[in-house]
């Protein structure tokens, strides 16, 4: 009997336990229209629901929409009945239409969300909504998972499994009645920008989970386990000097970086497009020339990015053997982004987190694409891009070959997220991270 009571008490106390977490930067006010940035997206995914979700294996799954049917040029979604916003208001198709149109029309709306909804026509239709698009339909399904719905005229109110309370420098999210049935009490986020401080907080047991800094030889403290999550993040080298320097970097990235140089967090990339998105490794066409076009190459990178700095130093040593003086130039992150957008660079290094579908690589090639800093263009691109209906179809291989013939960027590192998690907390790792999948954190559970 006593054992039963003890076990029940343990289970109850664990059920009420909040997950202690940290943000690296202030996510800003919760805003489903204008909010952007990784931390804001985490808040939005916890407090909001999109029409579709993405499972841990990267497949579209039902979320706000119970099901969807193909219509000419689009999808027709049936909304889940009985869904309510955090303030108790019922969710209607008009809320979905308002959110999407606001994203399309508001000049200060999140840039990535506006890109997802470019050329998409939205109409309310009975108990659901109809979306028409010239894009491949399977792409739209995956992109919709990144568009949580807000209450009409209230861009900060969502219908997600957790309700947000903000106080000073802390963000508390409490579980609420929801169709995903969250099994943990909630989250308590604090602002800890310093990697060493996160490590210290984990060692003290003040964080339930946290990302470990990229350093070899770190072992999780007692009571924690280590999770390795391959991600869609890559460190990219952009070139405005043509593809010749990239051919050399392709060799150097393979030869310059010793095993375990960055611990488990990063390893040299193998191809041109992320393997995590299903692309086979592909080399730049043509061998590197014998003589280098320039004895000195400057590579800009974000000042304070320890990992990029260390990588460039390793590459510099390898480049020296080929008679090239590789000069890493740290640039303030805001200025670096401006130089990338303006095209004011020769070689520049920056990290990118790809969207969880193969179409995200088109950002390299689309005119005005988020990664087309080199103003890449090719007469055959439009024709091939129009044929990309399904992931893995033959036009993808043709497009990759086209890119390999004159690439504008080369990935240098593939990232794996190394996380220490309290042993009592069961989480669902995926390439999207811990928070962006469905059911995601709603399926986490405390085990006694």
């Amino acid at each position, binding site marked *: 009997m006593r054992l039963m009571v003890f076990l029940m008490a343990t289970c109850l106390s664990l059920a009420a336990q909040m997950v202690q977490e940290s943000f690296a930067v202030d996510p800003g006010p919760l805003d489903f229209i204008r909010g952007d940035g990784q931390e804001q997206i985490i808040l939005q995914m916890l407090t909001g629901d999109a029409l579709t979700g993405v499972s841990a294996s990267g497949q579209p799954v039902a979320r706000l929409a119970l099901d969807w049917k193909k219509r000419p040029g689009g999808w027709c979604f049936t909304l889940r009945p009985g869904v309510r916003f955090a303030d108790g208001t019922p969710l209607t198709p008009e809320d979905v239409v308002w959110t999407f149109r606001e994203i399309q029309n508001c000049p200060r709306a999140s*840039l990535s969300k506006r890109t997802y909804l470019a050329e998409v026509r939205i109409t309310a239709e009975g108990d659901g909504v109809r979306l028409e698009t010239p894009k491949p339909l399977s792409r739209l399904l995956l992109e919709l998972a990144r568009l949580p719905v807000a209450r009409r005229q209230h861009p900060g109110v969502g219908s997600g499994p957790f309700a947000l309370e903000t106080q000073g420098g802390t963000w508390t999210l409490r579980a609420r009645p929801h169709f995903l049935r969250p099994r943990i009490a909630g989250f308590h986020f604090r602002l800890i920008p310093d990697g060493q401080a996160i490590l210290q907080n984990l060692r003290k047991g003040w964080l339930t989970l946290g990302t470990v800094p990229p350093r070899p030889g770190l072992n999780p403290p007692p009571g924690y386990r280590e999770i390795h999550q391959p991600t869609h993040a890559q460190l990219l080298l952009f070139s405005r000097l043509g593809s010749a320097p990239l051919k050399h970097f392709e060799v150097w990235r393979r030869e310059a970086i010793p095993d375990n140089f960055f611990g488990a967090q990063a390893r040299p990339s193998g191809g041109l497009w992320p393997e995590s998105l299903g692309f086979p490794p592909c080399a730049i066409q043509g061998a590197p020339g014998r003589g280098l076009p320039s004895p000195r190459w400057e590579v800009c990178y974000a000042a304070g990015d320890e990992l990029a700095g260390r990588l460039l130093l390793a590459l510099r040593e390898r480049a020296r053997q080929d008679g090239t003086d590789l000069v890493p130039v740290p640039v303030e992150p805001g200025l670096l982004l401006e130089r990338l957008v303006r095209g004011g660079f020769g070689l520049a290094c920056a990290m990118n987190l790809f969207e969880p579908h193969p179409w995200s690589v088109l950002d390299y090639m689309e005119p005005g694409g988020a990664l087309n800093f080199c103003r890449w263009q090719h007469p055959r691109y439009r024709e091939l891009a129009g044929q990309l209906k399904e992931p893995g179809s033959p036009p993808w291989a043709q497009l990759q070959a086209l890119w390999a013939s004159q690439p504008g960027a080369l990935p240098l590192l593939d990232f794996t997220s190394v996380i220490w998690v309290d042993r009592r907390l069961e989480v669902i790792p995926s390439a999207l991270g811990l928070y962006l999948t469905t059911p995601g954190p709603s399926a986490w559970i405390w085990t006694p």
Partner: protein
Amino acid sequence: MSKGLGVWALALLLGVLIPGTSRGHALGPFPWLVTALTLGLCLALAATTLFLVERLGPVLAARPPLALWEAIPDLLWGALALVCWPAAWGPPGFPALALAFLLAALPGELRWLAQTLPRESPFPAAWGPRAIRISRRLALRSLLPRWLLARLPLWITATLILERMLGVRGPSSDWMMRLAFRDHWGVACWILGFALLWVLLQREGA
């Protein structure tokens, strides 16, 4: 004064027109509560410093233990607070920041004030302890506003490292974040605040 104002006006213009882009988002509201607590902490620091300097006098500046204490950087005090804070008490937050800040800032301020006090030998030392106390009080009273105005911006900026380490969203990290996220008007407000302190300091000096 006019040259200084020109420099501040230029800084303000730079604040509004900072080059660079941020793909980020709007930052949260200004951390008023932590700022009020930080200002309270600065006042506590000022009161402690005044009390100690008034008791110990200008000889304090020449004491080797003070130099030893002063040599330890803020970063180390922050790390020490983080390591020594009992795990069972939960995340340290503002109390640990206050402790680390006082330990880091106090020796420098003690030296600053003690060195500025007038010499006490032969007078007023020859007139007895009461005369010494009165002399120190008068000197400190005239130094106080200038000292506060000159040191306040430094104290606020000095808490940056501690705020980052101890997970506190306070005024120093707010200033830096607004700069990193290119919040032009937010940065301009900060520059305006610092310029105001400088103007007050100049008037006090005159």
